[in-house]
């Protein structure tokens, strides 16, 4: 599970769909090609039925791939999925920097 509040200086941040997709990808990545849906659900902190929708979408977008291992589907992250994660984390960092800039704090106060 990724933290909703990242560090003491950051304001609480609600997890959006993109964050959840990234969470699922990060958890799948840990299992090196053998991620079972139940294990991913424990890691992502998401019920299996809800997780299935996320996983199906990620497979459809080519960010995850599925393979049968012992008759059951196991998931792995694709190079495209890795690319998504790299971009996601970089973008999150930039957003955090921009949102914590003095100009932004000033505009929030004015707002």
């Amino acid at each position: 599970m990724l933290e909703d509040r990242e560090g003491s200086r950051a304001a609480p941040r609600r997890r959006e769909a993109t964050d959840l997709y990234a969470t699922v990808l990060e958890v799948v990545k840990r299992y090196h090609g053998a991620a079972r849906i139940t294990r991913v659900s424990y890691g992502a902190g998401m019920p299996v039925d809800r997780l299935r929708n996320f996983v199906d979408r990620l497979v459809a977008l080519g960010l995850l791939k599925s393979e049968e291992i012992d008759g059951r589907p196991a998931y792995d992250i694709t190079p495209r999925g890795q690319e998504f994660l790299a971009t996601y984390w970089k973008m999150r960092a930039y957003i955090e920097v921009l949102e914590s800039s003095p100009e932004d704090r000033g505009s929030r106060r004015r707002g």
Partner: protein
Amino acid sequence: MAETRLPRGAQVHLGTLDGDLRADRDVRITSDGTVTVTGSVRFDGPAEVVGSLVCTRFRSADGTVLIQGNLTVREDVEAHDGVLDIAGAIKAQRVDVDRRLRIGGVAEAEKFDVGGVLEGEQSMKARSVSVGGRFHLAGKLEAENVEAGGAVTLAEVSIDTLEVGGTVRLGGGEVRRSIEVGGRFRSDRPISFGSMEVGGLAEFEETAKGGAIEVGGLLSAAKDLGFDSLEIGGVGRIGGNATGNRAKIGGKFDVRGSLTLAQGLGVGGAISVREVLTAERLELGGSLETRRAILSDLCEVGGNVTTQEGLKAARIRLQRKSRARGPLVGQTIEIERSAHVDDLFGGEITLEERAEARRIFGARVRLRDGASADEILYTDSVEVDARARVRSPPRKVDTLPPFPL
């Protein structure tokens, strides 16, 4: 081996048991301190052991098993689709828990593999720790490989590798080989590491020392930072001194102390070094602001240069329309078109078209058309194009005044 079965909801008092133990759901086992089972123990649902448990193998499924004391297992611990909550210490060969493992005492195993959440209140020793979700440890972690998919909070580490998908917060310690973090890394106390790759943000609240550091977004170090190579996609802020071999910053770089590099520095945006910047080469897209800059080879700047004491390099190239405040000292100095500079001290100095300088002290000086200077002192030659201007006629001298820096 004999098997003792406990029915659903049973409440028993046990001491030492020969053979295996299998318990149905909602069992409560009390003891005088420790329950010892010579074979394996299996819980088929929620259960509670009031005291410590010693056995050869431990299995649980579907529910929370609470051990009020220590859990000592000669072989493996497996908790399928369940939670294992141990108030005391755990010792086993391999620990595999699907949902959540909480350990109140010291933890020791060859391998910890947890699907969801791993929480430890004291120290942990293992060869490898793998967690799908969140990993929190209040004591020291000694391990070879540690990986987690989500957030990791560790008090102190002595580990070989750390690979985390989400965020990491470390008290400090040593990561001997590599740190790979997808999102955010933060260290609250001094840390040393082999190499570091962070996708988003890296923050060091205390001194940090490592090999190759690669950060996609922002790096912020409150105190000194040491490295072999430093590569930051976005912004870098160092509160103390920064020391290393080479650095490449995509955006802005701000160093409150001195920046000392054995090799090159490349900055896409602006760089500010409050004290002294020392490097072999500097290639800068934006502006430079520092007390003093010393480059043993090339300095090429696209924006403005502001120094209090000056900038010295073997070769200085100030690109078109740049501005320099403070003296520039170099073997070769090229001031490109429409750039404006203060005083220049060097061997071979060229002002391109419409470039402007205050005073020039050089061996060989050349001013192209439209360039201008207030004063030129030279030892070997001076070449002033027809449409170049010098406020007072260039003067040939035997020796130039001492150069700054």
